[in-house]
């Protein structure tokens, strides 16, 4: 379902400073799988996630999702692809701190201009699923780290995406909240979602429902 073919990604920091984040890697993930990408900071895990989410383009190689070359998509089509297929959970949540929980969660729906009923029904589903109904109107910056992450997950799932991508999802959580997050992943996997998690948190490495653990080091698969 998701295929990375001969991917090389080089970041041009400036004329004399180029960083090779990924070096000719090949990966294949099937539908409904949960894949854990492990590796230290700067190993290239997050770059793989960015490429799968069409947030950036590879310097060389191709990213194919459902037989579509998403690495070749023009910018606006890449956005539409993300809107319809991807739920991205960022390490630092990337919420808009001055908006309420409800406003943050509904943000991905705004361009589609849905009617109020559709908004409310989708909103209520995720609010209840992640147990944040009582915080619906709270401004996000006033929430705890765990609550903010639940808002970020709710936002990622509001469009019911096929692919869920999580970048260091437990980096800012304590152990209990991390275990809660893992539980949530288990639920999502049972709904046949394809999940790719980049982490260096050992909690993820021996989970019984993880299909693959792939180690990345210096832009190469080990």
């Amino acid at each position, binding site marked *: 379902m998701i295929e990375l073919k001969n991917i090389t990604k080089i970041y041009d920091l400036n004329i004399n400073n180029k960083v090779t984040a990924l070096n000719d890697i090949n990966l294949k993930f099937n539908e409904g799988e949960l894949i854990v990408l492990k590796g230290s900071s700067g190993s290239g895990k997050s770059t793989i996630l960015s490429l799968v989410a069409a947030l950036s*383009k590879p310097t060389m190689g191709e990213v194919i999702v459902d037989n579509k070359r998403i690495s070749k998509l023009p*910018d606006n089509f890449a956005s539409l692809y993300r809107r319809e297929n991807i739920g991205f959970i960022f390490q630092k949540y990337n919420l808009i701190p001055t908006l309420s929980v409800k406003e943050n969660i509904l943000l991905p*729906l705004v361009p589609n201009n849905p009617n109020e009923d559709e908004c409310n029904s989708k909103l209520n589903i995720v609010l209840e699923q992640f147990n944040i109904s009582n915080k619906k109107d709270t401004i996000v910056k006033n929430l705890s780290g765990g609550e903010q992450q639940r808002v970020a997950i709710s936002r*990622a799932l509001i469009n019911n995406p096929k692919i869920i991508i999580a970048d260091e999802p437990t980096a800012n959580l304590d152990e209990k909240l991390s275990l809660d997050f893992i539980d949530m992943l288990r639920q999502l996997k049972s709904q046949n979602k394809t999940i790719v998690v980049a982490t260096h948190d050992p909690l993820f490495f021996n989970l019984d429902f993880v299909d693959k653990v792939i180690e990345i080091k210096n832009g190469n698969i080990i």
Partner: protein
Amino acid sequence: MLKINLHLIEYAINSLLRSKTKSIFITTIFTLLVFLLTSIFFISNSIKYELNSTVDSLPQIIVQNIKGGKSYDIKTNIVDDIINIPGVSDAIPRVWGYYFFENAGVNFSLVGINSYETQYKNSFNELIENYDLEEDSMIVGSGVKKLLEQNYYKNYFNFIKPDGDFKKLNIGGTFNGDTQLESNDLIIMSIENAREIFDMSKSKATDISVKVDNPIEIPMISSKIKSMYPNTRVITNSDLKVSYQNIFDYKSGIFLALFAICLFTFFIIIYDKSSGLSSEEKKEIGILKAIGWTVDDVLKEKFVEGAIVSIFAYLLGVIFAFIFVYILQAPILRNIFEGYSILRTTFELPFVLDLQTLSLVFFLSVPVYIAATIIPSWRTATLDADEVIR
């Protein structure tokens, strides 16, 4: 069918409210600039309108007696010769002049008229029909009346004649002239009284007003008069228009300078705004892109933000300018135009609706501001979302 995206508008409004201080600051500056620009245009349009009305109500040709370039009283016996020029319908000797009212520090225009003759101005004919101009009375413009009352002359006024004696005239009536400028400094009295105040003999007049049936013939008739009486100065109403226009244009220069300062300030703000976004603003655009907003969606949202601020500030600025100019009569700014020809009593700025002016200010401000909002956002939105968020 095009459906308005209310969610996008709501998001744009929320976005403005989130940066409340910045939004209020920009709206205030924007409003102030629109207010200044519009006020300048409103004032200059009103005064231009007043001047044009004044000039239009002046005689078609005026003949003055000139000695060494200076104007003196003219002999009235040349009137018959002028009337005999083909194309001339009437020639009326005028007795008028300025009277300096020291207490108020202003000049009044005194005009002597003969009630039994046709006047050189239609408004004077109407005045004679409506008011009885008795031997010891005068009719004053509403502005003059106000000024005299302020100086305790409620029913009469004592003019000081050149020999030092007083000439007492009762106020027989008050009128509103063709224009505000006129009604505010004009006093009409019998021609005999005017001659007495100016110490002018019966065989003389201040000048001669000439009426021409066909306005196209004005230049030709004026040159004929000039050739018949080489010691006269013949002034046509188009000459007067040019002279008034020159004075107005000089004053407009000051307004132009103000206008330039306003525009300059506006463009500095625009330059500052268009030169970049804060890191928070950039990150927000990155987040929106990452969750599936297209570049078009981001630009639409920024367009709505810019439009809300600029249209709101524009309307506010125009309303304030309207109140300032037409209700408060433009305190401070109007002083620039006072004394545009001679010392004048006060006059009211007439309301002149000029859609061209409003459109000009709109197109100078609103689209420029919207563009300045969109361009930096477009720059950020077209980068890789990944690069912006990091």
